[in-house]
C-alpha cells in the first residue's frame, strides 16, 4: 500500500496472505467463510495447482509468526472461467481451504455485499496488504483509506484500458494512497451503517504504482460476483 500506515494486529481479521514456496507471500486474500477465501485470478498465472499454495491468516508481521496465526493448505482453486488475462477482466477466484479455520478475534470472515449492493461514489473505504510501500516490501500489514471513484471518472485515467462493470475504482487522482504490487487479491472493504464491514473489491490492477503515471487503483467488483461466489461454494460443498 502506498501512502498508508502500519496496521495494528487484528484490525483486519479477514486479511490473509497467499503464499507459495520458495517466495513466501505472493498475493493477498480475504476470508469470506470458515473454509473459503477470495483472491484474484491473476495470482495463479503459471501456478494453478492448489498443492503449491497455502493461506496464512491472523498474521500482521510476515517475518514474525504470531500465536494468533493460522495456516491452511489450499484444497481447490476456482478461477472464474471468463478471466481475461489481457483485459484483467473477471479477475477473481475462490479458494477452498483444506480445513475450516478457527474463528478468533484475529481470524474472522468479512461480509459479502448483497446482490446489487454497491458502495457510493466518493465513499471512503479501506485497502490493506503487504505489497510495495514505494521502494521496499513491508513486513507489517499496511492499511490505507481510499475514495470510491465512478467508472466514468476512472475510465478517464486509463485511456488505453477498458474499465468494465466487473471492475471498481478507488483511490486518488494523484495516487497518493494506492494499492501496489503484492497487494493483489487483498480487500477493499467499506463499513456499513451497522458497523459491519463488507468486501466490495479485490486489489486487481492499476498504473505502475511507484511511477510518475498515477491514478486510482482498479479492483475486482465483488458485488458483480456475489451470486457466482455463492454458487461456487454451494457446488463445492455438495460435490455437484
Amino acid at each position: 500500500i502506498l501512502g498508508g500506515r502500519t496496521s495494528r494486529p487484528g484490525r483486519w481479521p479477514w486479511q490473509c496472505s497467499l503464499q507459495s514456496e520458495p517466495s513466501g507471500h505472493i498475493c493477498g486474500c480475504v476470508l469470506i467463510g470458515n473454509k473459503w477465501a477470495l483472491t484474484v485470478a491473476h495470482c495463479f498465472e503459471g501456478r494453478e495447482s492448489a498443492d503449491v499454495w497455502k493461506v496464512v491468516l491472523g498474521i500482521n508481521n510476515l517475518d514474525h509468526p504470531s500465536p494468533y496465526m493460522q495456516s491452511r493448505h489450499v484444497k481447490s482453486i476456482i478461477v472464474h472461467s471468463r478471466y481475461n488475462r489481457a483485459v484483467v477482466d473477471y479477475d477473481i477466484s475462490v479458494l477452498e481451504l483444506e480445513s475450516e479455520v478457527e474463528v478468533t478475534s484475529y481470524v474472522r470472515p468479512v461480509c459479502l455485499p448483497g446482490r446489487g449492493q454497491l458502495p457510493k461514489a466518493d465513499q471512503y473505504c479501506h485497502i490493506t496488504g503487504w505489497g510495495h510501500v514505494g521502494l521496499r516490501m513491508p513486513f507489517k500489514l499496511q492499511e490505507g483509506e481510499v475514495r470510491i471513484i465512478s467508472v466514468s471518472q476512472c475510465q478517464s485515467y486509463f485511456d488505453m484500458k477498458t474499465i468494465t462493470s466487473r471492475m471498481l475504482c478507488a483511490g486518488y487522482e494523484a495516487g497518493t494512497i494506492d494499492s501496489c504490487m503484492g497487494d493483489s487479491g487483498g480487500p477493499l472493504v467499506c463499513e456499513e451503517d451497522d458497523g459491519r464491514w463488507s468486501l466490495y473489491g479485490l486489489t486487481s490492477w492499476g498504473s505502475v504504482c511507484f511511477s510518475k503515471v498515477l491514478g486510482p487503483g482498479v479492483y475486482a467488483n465483488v458485488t458483480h460476483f456475489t451470486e457466482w461466489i455463492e454458487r461456487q461454494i454451494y457446488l463445492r460443498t455438495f460435490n455437484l
Partner: protein
Amino acid sequence: CTSTSCSSGCHGNTSCDLRNASNNCSGCEPISLEICMNLPYNSTRFPNYLGHHSQKETSMSWESSLFPALVQTNCYKYLMFFACTVLVPMCDPVTQQRVPPCRSLCRNSKERCESVLGIVGLQWPEDTDCAQFPEEGQANSSCLLPDPDVNECSPSHFKCRSGRCVLSSKRCDGHTDCDDDSDEETCGCVERGLWECPGDKTCIHHNMICDGFPDCSQQEDENNCSACSSHEMECTNHQCVHRSLWCDGSRHCSDSSDEWNCVSLSDEGFVTVHKAGMEYRVCADGWSSNLSSVACTQMGLGSPLSADAVLDVSSAAGRRHWLHVDPDWNPQNMFPLQGLLEKRGQSCTSSKKISLKCTRDKCGRRPAARMVKR
C-alpha cells in the same frame, strides 16, 4: 526427394510432401492470407516473388507485416495491391502459372513508398527488384495492373474517407487515426464488428452471445439460444436437460445450473423446493435437525435457528404438491436438500409443512479496540 523416390507426375513440379495421397498437380491454391483477400483474383501459386514457399511462411514473414503498416501512410493508392501480387501471386487458371505484377506498378510503389520507409530507417524488400517483372503490353507475357477502383484496403483495414487504410482495430477506438478523423465517425456496434444489445445499445463481442453469461442489461444476448422440447428445461449454458432430472441432487447441466436455486424460503419462512420444474412444500414427516442444517447451508446461510412443522390449513389434504424425506437418507451423505426429498404420490400424513429460520453467518465484525485509561 530424399525420403522417397521421385514424385511421379506433374512434370517435376510437385513438392515432396506425400501427406496428400493424390498429388494435386495444378499448383493453384485458394488465397488464405487475410491481408490479401480483397483481390480481384482468389487463387495463388507458390513460391511467391519474395521466395516464400507457402502462405503460412508468407503470413509469418517480415514483409506481410511491413506492407500493411506501410499502406497506412497513404504513400501509394495501389501499394497493397502490388504487395499482394508479390506476396500471393495470381495463379492463371489456364496455364497454372504465376502472373507477375507489371513493372510500372512495382516502380510506382517503390518510388512513392521507399522514401517513407527510409524515414523510419527501414529498407524496401530486397527481393522486389522491379526489373524481374515484365513491362505491360510486352509480347508473350501478361502482367497485373490495378483496376482503378481496386479495393486498396484489406479486410483487416478500414478505409478512411481520404483513401488511407488504417487497421480495423483502430476504428472507433477513441483515437483519430485517419487524417480526416473518419475512423471515429458513426461508431456503432456494427461498424466496430460487434453486436448491439437491443435494449441498452451496449456493444458486445459475438462470442459473448449465448455463452451462458448475460452481458446485455436485459440479457437479450442469452435469449433464443436453444430449442428445448416441452419435456426439457434449459440450463444457463443453454443445454437442454430432461425436466425430471432438474433439481434431483445430481448435476446434469455441464455448468451445474440444473442444481442451482432449488431450495428457498418463502416470505413466511416455508421451505420451498423447485423440482422437475414444479414448486413443492416439504412434508414434516421424517424431518430432522440435520436436514435443517443442510437446507440452511445450501442457501448460503448459517446454522438453523428453528425448524417448525406448521399445519397446512391453506389447502385440502392431498391437493398440495408435497415432497417427502427419503427414509434411507444417511446424514453422513452430503447431498443437497433436493436430492434427499422425493415425491411419493400420497399426501402428507401430518399435513404439516416445514418452516425454517436460519441464522446469518457472523461476518464483518472487527474486535473492539482495547481501551486503556489514560
